[in-house]
Protein backbone atom coordinates (compact mmCIF):
# COMPACT_ATOMS: atom_id res chain seq x y z
CA UNK A 1 0.00 0.00 0.00
CA UNK A 2 1.14 3.49 -0.68
CA UNK A 3 0.32 6.56 -2.66
CA UNK A 4 2.38 5.53 -5.68
CA UNK A 5 0.67 2.13 -5.98
CA UNK A 6 -2.75 3.75 -5.86
CA UNK A 7 -1.69 6.26 -8.51
CA UNK A 8 -0.53 3.40 -10.73
CA UNK A 9 -3.88 1.62 -10.25
CA UNK A 10 -5.73 4.78 -11.14
CA UNK A 11 -3.52 5.32 -14.19
CA UNK A 12 -4.33 1.78 -15.32
CA UNK A 13 -8.06 2.43 -14.89
CA UNK A 14 -7.74 5.68 -16.82
CA UNK A 15 -5.93 4.00 -19.71
CA UNK A 16 -8.49 1.18 -19.87
CA UNK A 17 -11.27 3.77 -19.98
CA UNK A 18 -9.48 5.75 -22.68
CA UNK A 19 -8.95 2.59 -24.74
CA UNK A 20 -12.64 1.73 -24.39
CA UNK A 21 -13.70 5.21 -25.51
CA UNK A 22 -11.30 5.21 -28.46
CA UNK A 23 -12.05 1.76 -29.84
CA UNK A 24 -15.74 1.10 -29.21
CA UNK A 25 -18.43 2.17 -31.62
CA UNK A 26 -21.35 1.29 -29.35
CA UNK A 27 -22.36 4.41 -27.38
CA UNK A 28 -23.14 2.39 -24.24
CA UNK A 29 -19.60 0.99 -24.24
CA UNK A 30 -18.25 4.53 -24.64
CA UNK A 31 -20.30 5.44 -21.55
CA UNK A 32 -18.63 2.56 -19.67
CA UNK A 33 -15.24 4.01 -20.58
CA UNK A 34 -16.30 7.40 -19.22
CA UNK A 35 -17.35 5.77 -15.95
CA UNK A 36 -13.96 4.04 -15.66
CA UNK A 37 -12.19 7.37 -16.13
CA UNK A 38 -14.39 9.03 -13.49
CA UNK A 39 -13.52 6.20 -11.09
CA UNK A 40 -9.82 6.67 -11.69
CA UNK A 41 -10.13 10.39 -10.96
CA UNK A 42 -12.02 9.56 -7.77
CA UNK A 43 -9.27 7.20 -6.60
CA UNK A 44 -6.76 10.00 -7.13
CA UNK A 45 -8.85 12.49 -5.13
CA UNK A 46 -9.29 10.14 -2.19
CA UNK A 47 -5.69 8.90 -2.25
CA UNK A 48 -4.25 12.41 -2.19
CA UNK A 49 -6.63 13.50 0.55
CA UNK A 50 -5.66 10.44 2.60
CA UNK A 51 -1.90 10.53 2.15
CA UNK A 52 -0.98 14.15 1.45
CA UNK A 53 -3.49 16.72 2.64
CA UNK A 54 -5.21 14.89 5.52
CA UNK A 55 -8.31 16.96 4.84
CA UNK A 56 -11.68 15.45 4.04
CA UNK A 57 -12.18 17.72 1.03
CA UNK A 58 -10.99 15.10 -1.45
CA UNK A 59 -13.68 12.69 -0.32
CA UNK A 60 -16.35 15.37 -0.65
CA UNK A 61 -15.15 16.13 -4.15
CA UNK A 62 -15.41 12.41 -4.93
CA UNK A 63 -19.00 12.40 -3.64
CA UNK A 64 -19.85 15.21 -6.06
CA UNK A 65 -18.17 13.34 -8.89
CA UNK A 66 -20.35 10.30 -8.12
CA UNK A 67 -23.46 12.52 -8.14
CA UNK A 68 -22.48 13.96 -11.51
CA UNK A 69 -21.79 10.47 -12.87
CA UNK A 70 -25.27 9.35 -11.84
CA UNK A 71 -26.91 12.34 -13.52
CA UNK A 72 -24.77 11.84 -16.62
CA UNK A 73 -25.66 8.15 -16.86
CA UNK A 74 -29.39 8.92 -16.61
CA UNK A 75 -29.31 11.60 -19.31
CA UNK A 76 -27.03 9.47 -21.50
CA UNK A 77 -29.46 6.56 -21.27
CA UNK A 78 -32.32 8.85 -22.36
CA UNK A 79 -30.25 10.16 -25.28
CA UNK A 80 -29.31 6.61 -26.34
CA UNK A 81 -32.97 5.59 -26.33
CA UNK A 82 -33.85 8.56 -28.55
CA UNK A 83 -30.93 7.70 -30.82
CA UNK A 84 -32.09 4.09 -31.03
CA UNK A 85 -35.63 5.16 -31.83
CA UNK A 86 -34.36 7.54 -34.51
CA UNK A 87 -31.59 5.60 -36.23
CA UNK A 88 -32.18 1.99 -35.16
CA UNK A 89 -28.75 1.63 -33.56
CA UNK A 90 -26.62 3.27 -30.89
CA UNK A 91 -23.39 3.39 -32.87
CA UNK A 92 -21.68 6.71 -32.35
CA UNK A 93 -20.73 6.86 -36.04
CA UNK A 94 -24.40 6.90 -36.99
CA UNK A 95 -25.13 10.06 -34.99
CA UNK A 96 -23.84 12.52 -37.56
CA UNK A 97 -27.11 14.28 -38.36
CA UNK A 98 -25.60 17.69 -37.66
CA UNK A 99 -22.91 17.12 -40.29
CA UNK A 100 -23.56 19.40 -43.25
Amino acid at each position, binding site marked *: *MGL*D*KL*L*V*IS*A*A*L*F*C*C*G*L*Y*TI*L*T*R*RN*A*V*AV*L*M*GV*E*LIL*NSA*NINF*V*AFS*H*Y*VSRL*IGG*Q*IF*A*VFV*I*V*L*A*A*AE*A*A*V*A*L*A*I*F*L*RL*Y*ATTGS*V*EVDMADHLQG
Partner: protein
Amino acid sequence: MTGPADLVFYVLAALTVGSAILVAILPNIVYSAVALLFSFAGVAGLYVFLSADFLAATQVLIYVGGILILILFAVFLSNRISDVKLSNPARFHGQAAFLCLGLFGVLSYTAVSTAWPVKPGIVYQPSTAEIGELLMTRYLLPFEVASVLLLAALIGAALLSRPDGGKGKAVDMEEPK
Protein backbone atom coordinates in the same frame (compact mmCIF):
# COMPACT_ATOMS: atom_id res chain seq x y z
CA MET B 1 0.69 -2.42 7.83
CA THR B 2 1.88 -5.72 6.43
CA GLY B 3 0.67 -9.26 6.01
CA PRO B 4 -2.99 -10.01 5.32
CA ALA B 5 -3.92 -6.37 4.70
CA ASP B 6 -1.31 -6.09 1.97
CA LEU B 7 -2.53 -9.32 0.42
CA VAL B 8 -6.12 -8.05 0.40
CA PHE B 9 -4.96 -4.78 -1.11
CA TYR B 10 -3.18 -6.52 -3.97
CA VAL B 11 -6.16 -8.80 -4.59
CA LEU B 12 -8.44 -5.74 -4.77
CA ALA B 13 -6.01 -3.94 -7.07
CA ALA B 14 -5.80 -6.96 -9.37
CA LEU B 15 -9.61 -7.27 -9.36
CA THR B 16 -10.04 -3.60 -10.23
CA VAL B 17 -7.44 -3.38 -12.97
CA GLY B 18 -8.12 -6.84 -14.42
CA SER B 19 -11.83 -6.16 -14.69
CA ALA B 20 -11.13 -2.78 -16.27
CA ILE B 21 -8.94 -4.47 -18.88
CA LEU B 22 -11.74 -6.97 -19.53
CA VAL B 23 -14.17 -4.06 -19.99
CA ALA B 24 -11.81 -2.68 -22.60
CA ILE B 25 -11.23 -5.87 -24.58
CA LEU B 26 -14.25 -8.18 -24.21
CA PRO B 27 -16.22 -8.36 -27.47
CA ASN B 28 -19.63 -8.97 -25.86
CA ILE B 29 -21.07 -5.81 -24.34
CA VAL B 30 -23.02 -7.68 -21.65
CA TYR B 31 -19.79 -9.29 -20.46
CA SER B 32 -18.21 -5.83 -20.49
CA ALA B 33 -20.98 -4.55 -18.21
CA VAL B 34 -20.49 -7.44 -15.77
CA ALA B 35 -16.73 -6.84 -15.74
CA LEU B 36 -17.47 -3.18 -15.01
CA LEU B 37 -19.44 -4.35 -11.95
CA PHE B 38 -16.36 -6.10 -10.54
CA SER B 39 -14.19 -3.11 -11.32
CA PHE B 40 -16.53 -0.78 -9.40
CA ALA B 41 -16.63 -3.22 -6.48
CA GLY B 42 -12.83 -3.32 -6.43
CA VAL B 43 -12.70 0.48 -6.33
CA ALA B 44 -15.09 0.41 -3.36
CA GLY B 45 -12.66 -1.93 -1.60
CA LEU B 46 -9.78 0.43 -2.34
CA TYR B 47 -11.77 3.27 -0.73
CA VAL B 48 -11.89 1.22 2.48
CA PHE B 49 -8.08 1.10 2.45
CA LEU B 50 -8.06 4.90 2.12
CA SER B 51 -10.24 5.27 5.26
CA ALA B 52 -13.13 6.53 3.14
CA ASP B 53 -15.89 4.37 4.59
CA PHE B 54 -18.77 6.60 3.51
CA LEU B 55 -17.41 6.77 -0.01
CA ALA B 56 -17.06 2.98 -0.19
CA ALA B 57 -20.72 2.54 0.76
CA THR B 58 -21.73 5.26 -1.70
CA GLN B 59 -19.73 3.58 -4.44
CA VAL B 60 -21.50 0.28 -3.89
CA LEU B 61 -24.93 1.90 -3.62
CA ILE B 62 -24.74 4.32 -6.54
CA TYR B 63 -22.24 2.81 -8.97
CA VAL B 64 -22.91 -0.89 -8.50
CA GLY B 65 -26.59 -0.51 -7.61
CA GLY B 66 -27.58 2.40 -9.80
CA ILE B 67 -25.32 3.33 -12.67
CA LEU B 68 -24.56 -0.25 -13.64
CA ILE B 69 -28.27 -1.09 -13.71
CA LEU B 70 -28.80 1.97 -15.92
CA ILE B 71 -26.04 0.77 -18.25
CA LEU B 72 -27.56 -2.71 -18.43
CA PHE B 73 -30.94 -1.12 -19.17
CA ALA B 74 -29.33 0.85 -21.97
CA VAL B 75 -27.73 -2.32 -23.34
CA PHE B 76 -30.92 -4.34 -23.30
CA LEU B 77 -33.16 -1.55 -24.58
CA SER B 78 -30.89 -0.51 -27.41
CA ASN B 79 -29.81 -3.86 -28.81
CA ARG B 80 -31.82 -6.73 -30.03
CA ILE B 81 -30.99 -9.44 -27.54
CA SER B 82 -30.43 -12.02 -30.27
CA ASP B 83 -27.52 -10.21 -31.91
CA VAL B 84 -26.02 -8.89 -28.70
CA LYS B 85 -22.84 -10.80 -29.47
CA LEU B 86 -22.21 -8.58 -32.47
CA SER B 87 -23.29 -5.42 -30.69
CA ASN B 88 -19.90 -4.16 -29.64
CA PRO B 89 -17.85 -3.54 -32.77
CA ALA B 90 -14.47 -1.95 -32.26
CA ARG B 91 -11.81 -0.29 -34.40
CA PHE B 92 -8.43 1.45 -34.20
CA HIS B 93 -7.03 -1.32 -31.96
CA GLY B 94 -3.38 -0.74 -32.79
CA GLN B 95 -3.25 3.03 -32.44
CA ALA B 96 -5.40 3.07 -29.31
CA ALA B 97 -3.33 0.36 -27.62
CA PHE B 98 -0.12 2.21 -28.50
CA LEU B 99 -1.48 5.49 -27.15
CA CYS B 100 -2.92 3.99 -23.96
CA LEU B 101 0.14 1.89 -23.12
CA GLY B 102 2.39 4.89 -23.71
CA LEU B 103 0.21 7.07 -21.54
CA PHE B 104 0.14 4.41 -18.83
CA GLY B 105 3.92 4.24 -18.92
CA VAL B 106 4.29 8.00 -18.57
CA LEU B 107 1.69 8.26 -15.81
CA SER B 108 3.00 5.36 -13.74
CA TYR B 109 6.61 6.51 -14.16
CA THR B 110 5.55 9.94 -12.89
CA ALA B 111 3.61 8.42 -10.00
CA VAL B 112 6.50 6.22 -8.89
CA SER B 113 9.41 8.61 -9.44
CA THR B 114 7.89 11.75 -7.93
CA ALA B 115 8.65 12.37 -4.26
CA TRP B 116 5.12 13.06 -3.05
CA PRO B 117 4.93 15.05 0.20
CA VAL B 118 3.30 12.17 2.07
CA LYS B 119 2.59 12.89 5.70
CA PRO B 120 3.99 10.19 7.99
CA GLY B 121 1.78 8.07 10.18
CA ILE B 122 -1.33 7.01 8.35
CA VAL B 123 -4.47 7.49 10.44
CA TYR B 124 -7.67 5.54 9.92
CA GLN B 125 -10.76 7.23 11.24
CA PRO B 126 -14.45 7.25 10.31
CA SER B 127 -15.27 10.04 7.90
CA THR B 128 -19.05 9.90 7.59
CA ALA B 129 -19.85 12.40 10.38
CA GLU B 130 -17.27 14.85 9.12
CA ILE B 131 -18.53 14.62 5.53
CA GLY B 132 -22.10 15.23 6.68
CA GLU B 133 -21.08 18.23 8.74
CA LEU B 134 -19.02 19.75 5.92
CA LEU B 135 -21.81 19.19 3.40
CA MET B 136 -24.13 21.22 5.61
CA THR B 137 -21.67 24.01 6.36
CA ARG B 138 -18.73 24.69 4.07
CA TYR B 139 -19.96 22.80 1.00
CA LEU B 140 -23.62 23.79 1.33
CA LEU B 141 -23.78 25.67 -1.98
CA PRO B 142 -22.32 22.82 -4.10
CA PHE B 143 -24.63 20.44 -2.24
CA GLU B 144 -27.72 22.47 -3.16
CA VAL B 145 -26.52 23.00 -6.73
CA ALA B 146 -26.02 19.23 -7.02
CA SER B 147 -29.58 18.62 -5.85
CA VAL B 148 -30.94 21.07 -8.44
CA LEU B 149 -28.77 19.39 -11.08
CA LEU B 150 -30.13 15.97 -10.14
CA LEU B 151 -33.69 17.28 -10.41
CA ALA B 152 -32.94 18.80 -13.80
CA ALA B 153 -31.32 15.57 -14.99
CA LEU B 154 -34.32 13.58 -13.77
CA ILE B 155 -36.84 15.77 -15.58
CA GLY B 156 -34.67 16.01 -18.67
CA ALA B 157 -34.16 12.26 -18.87
CA ALA B 158 -37.88 11.58 -18.44
CA LEU B 159 -38.70 14.15 -21.13
CA LEU B 160 -36.04 12.95 -23.54
CA SER B 161 -36.91 9.28 -23.36
CA ARG B 162 -40.56 9.86 -24.27
CA PRO B 163 -41.72 9.37 -27.83
CA ASP B 164 -41.74 12.59 -29.87
CA GLY B 165 -39.01 13.96 -27.64
CA GLY B 166 -41.44 15.32 -25.08
CA LYS B 167 -43.80 16.97 -27.51
CA GLY B 168 -46.51 14.35 -27.15
CA LYS B 169 -48.94 14.02 -24.29
CA ALA B 170 -48.66 11.35 -21.64
CA VAL B 171 -51.64 9.60 -23.20
CA ASP B 172 -49.80 8.61 -26.36
CA MET B 173 -46.97 6.76 -24.66
CA GLU B 174 -46.37 3.92 -27.06
CA GLU B 175 -43.61 1.71 -28.25
CA PRO B 176 -40.91 3.79 -29.92
CA LYS B 177 -40.99 3.26 -33.65
